[in-house]
């Protein structure tokens, strides 16, 4: 893939693009998102299952498609373009990457994810952890055949509608050691688990978890050795989000370019004003820069070797900066209506702001990059 989609990837993009166009208009977006029953979003998820998207990254051995990161990029760019708000990345990218083992419980969850009958998310962050995945204080103590889990997770991305949580817990070591972290699969109705639910400004629905003497938890993978697995799964989730971000910022920029050509003020299209022309050029450069990095990250992820964590850090920093810049300026150039709910540009800005928080901020990844370099 030399900065182009393959034919298959392009077909996937086209199909997701059509899907977004037909099913996800801007008008009525607020109502659709705020529906407590999530009825239309449920139908959307069901249709995505029919299209096979939900099993895209699940290994063929586990009944999935086992597609590469190029396919993920194509799909996510279209999702970003139409701002389809779903738990896709958590459920269909992150969790399948976490559940690489052959535990029965894991296989069951993957099957249900693949056919659309269940959602899942990964629960890592704690009150004082910042975005460090290895700062884990939530405790899992072995008692006979089971583990007893106690502690909190302060934020679970897209976790509000999850049926299962893959929870990082400390089984040994001190609270910031890389060794001693294990993963557990916990159903949402496990006794002792309390799930608080929240909505974000982009319509995504997250959770906070309180675990009090939870015993209904299945160890995933090897005890004490989960950190590498968690980090590489999060890197894949980040790559998917970055593709979404690049699709979203490109859409916002395209809409703005169109607006500059049609909106008239002071007797001419506002695109005749040089200041707005140059701003538009800078926005397009931001899109170009972000897209290039996303292609690069996808290419890296397609290789046999493990993904280069520094490349993902770098992309998180720069794509994030470009996305904020592009969508902030998209709102600015639209003027008052850019600030209103009625056109989509402000929704793109909101999503970019939230994508920057998902699994770690720009500052976090820049400092990881600085330390790793």
């Amino acid at each position, binding site marked *: 893939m030399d900065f182009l989609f393959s034919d298959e990837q392009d077909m996937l993009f086209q199909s997701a693009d059509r899907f977004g166009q037909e099913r996800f208009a801007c008008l009525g977006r607020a109502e659709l998102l705020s529906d407590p029953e999530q009825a239309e979003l449920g139908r959307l998820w069901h249709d995505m299952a029919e299209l096979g998207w939900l099993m895209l990254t699940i290994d063929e051995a586990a009944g999935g498609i086992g597609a590469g990161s190029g396919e993920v990029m194509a799909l996510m760019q279209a999702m970003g373009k139409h701002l389809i708000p779903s738990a896709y990345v958590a459920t269909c990218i992150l969790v399948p990457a976490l559940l690489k083992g052959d535990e029965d419980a894991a296989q069951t969850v993957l099957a249900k994810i693949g056919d659309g009958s269940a959602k899942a998310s990964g629960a890592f*962050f704690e009150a004082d952890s910042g975005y460090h995945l290895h700062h884990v204080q939530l405790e899992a103590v072995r008692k006979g055949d089971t583990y007893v889990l106690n502690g909190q997770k302060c934020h679970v991305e897209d976790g509000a509608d999850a049926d299962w949580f893959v929870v990082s817990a400390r089984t040994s070591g001190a609270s*910031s050691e890389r060794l001693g972290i294990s993963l557990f699969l916990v159903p949402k109705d496990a006794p002792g688990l309390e799930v608080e639910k*929240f909505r974000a400004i982009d319509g995504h629905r997250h959770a906070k978890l309180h675990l009090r003497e939870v015993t209904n938890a299945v160890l995933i993978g090897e005890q004490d050795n989960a950190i590498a697995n968690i980090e590489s799964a999060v890197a894949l989730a980040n790559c998917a989000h970055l593709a979404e971000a690049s699709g979203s910022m490109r859409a916002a920029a395209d809409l703005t370019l169109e607006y500059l050509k049609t909106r008239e003020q002071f007797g001419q299209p506002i695109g005749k004003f040089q200041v707005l022309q140059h701003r538009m050029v800078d926005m397009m450069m931001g899109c170009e820069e972000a897209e290039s990095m996303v292609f690069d990250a996808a290419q890296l992820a397609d290789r046999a070797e493990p993904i280069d964590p520094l490349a993902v850090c770098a992309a998180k920093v720069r794509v994030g900066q470009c996305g904020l810049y592009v969508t902030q300026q998209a709102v600015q150039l639209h003027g008052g209506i850019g600030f209103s*709910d009625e056109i989509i540009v402000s929704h793109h800005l909101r999503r970019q702001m939230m994508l920057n928080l998902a699994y770690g901020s720009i500052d976090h990844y820049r*400092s990881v990059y600085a330390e790793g370099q």
Partner: protein
Amino acid sequence: MASDLTTANPNPDFKEEVREFFSEGIPENWRTRLRAGLRLEPDELIAYQKKLAARGWGAPTWPKEYGGTGWGPQQLYTFWREAANAYAPNQFHQGLELIGPIIFSYGSDEQKKKFLPPILNGDHWWCQGYSEPGAGSDLASLRTRADRDGDFYVLNGQKTWTSYAHVATHVFVLARTSTEAKRQQGISLFLIDMTSPGLSIRPIRTMDEKHHTNELFIDNVRVPAENLVGEEGRGWEYGKVLLDRERMVTASTAIFLQQTVAAVRDAASRRKIGSSLLIDRPVFASKLAQFEIEVRALQIMVRRLMADAARGAQSGPRGSMVKLRWSQLLQAGTALWVEALGPEASHFRALTGSPLDEDMPYALQGALYSRVTSIYGGTSEIQHNIIARRALGL
């Protein structure tokens, strides 16, 4: 007197008086929203207006004869600094700072008597019917019409971005009384009761999820001719009285930015990452220092602006510059605040009735709201155009 602005403690008595006033009765739950640069709800602003009025401070920028305090720039500066320190709001509303001054400058005696006191004591709440759909920054292109019919004018048209129309008792509207004149002439200014038949509103949803603005539909609304301000066709130029006052409004807004500084500092002092506080981490501390330094620079520019006012000098482009910098810094500050909150900042509304740290929704709302501050009141691009033309002669 001018130099008082620059010395440490110009008038200790007045300062003490103000400080005492603010020491009681600023509700705790205002604080988070004010620090986010958000405006309070109208009922809160009305309550605050009544409280100020009761103390005789209902209109700090108005002359005494109309019920104002008659304060000069030095007292205003002290008042706003203390208000900002006490987490009081910056009391700006359209009655107080827009139509009030136009009425006491150009209105009839009856209009002054009828409309000014209720602005001060909070009984009337005004909104502004200036912007029209499609007009944007090009205000002079307005199309709302006012046709004379005996003792009345009949108004037809549509306004947009009419903030607080949903709670206002009155609206002041610019409408065209002549189509023959040039674009900016033939426009008149009317004072209208919001209960007038034919007025209706539709809320505009905005990205900060706060209902503060509306479309206003004007459908054969009959306005008594006595509610025309000044002369027919001169409505546009009455607005000019506000230009000179604008720098004071801008100044006060910028002074309140220190509340955002406090918010970021506070959030970063509470958040731990591993074993250290965020505020002690060098990279964050450096960003916060940069923000604080720029706010400090802006506050000094504000003092300079007010020193101009104190000696009756023109300020040239300084008012526009302060407005530009203020919106940039509010955007930077609220973004920093969101950053300080960490992963939980994505918790904007609780879906299961959980308690939500006040910081979370308001910091986000403030960050979203801040984006419109470089759009309203003349976009930053228009401000640049104005400075280039008027001050630089380009």
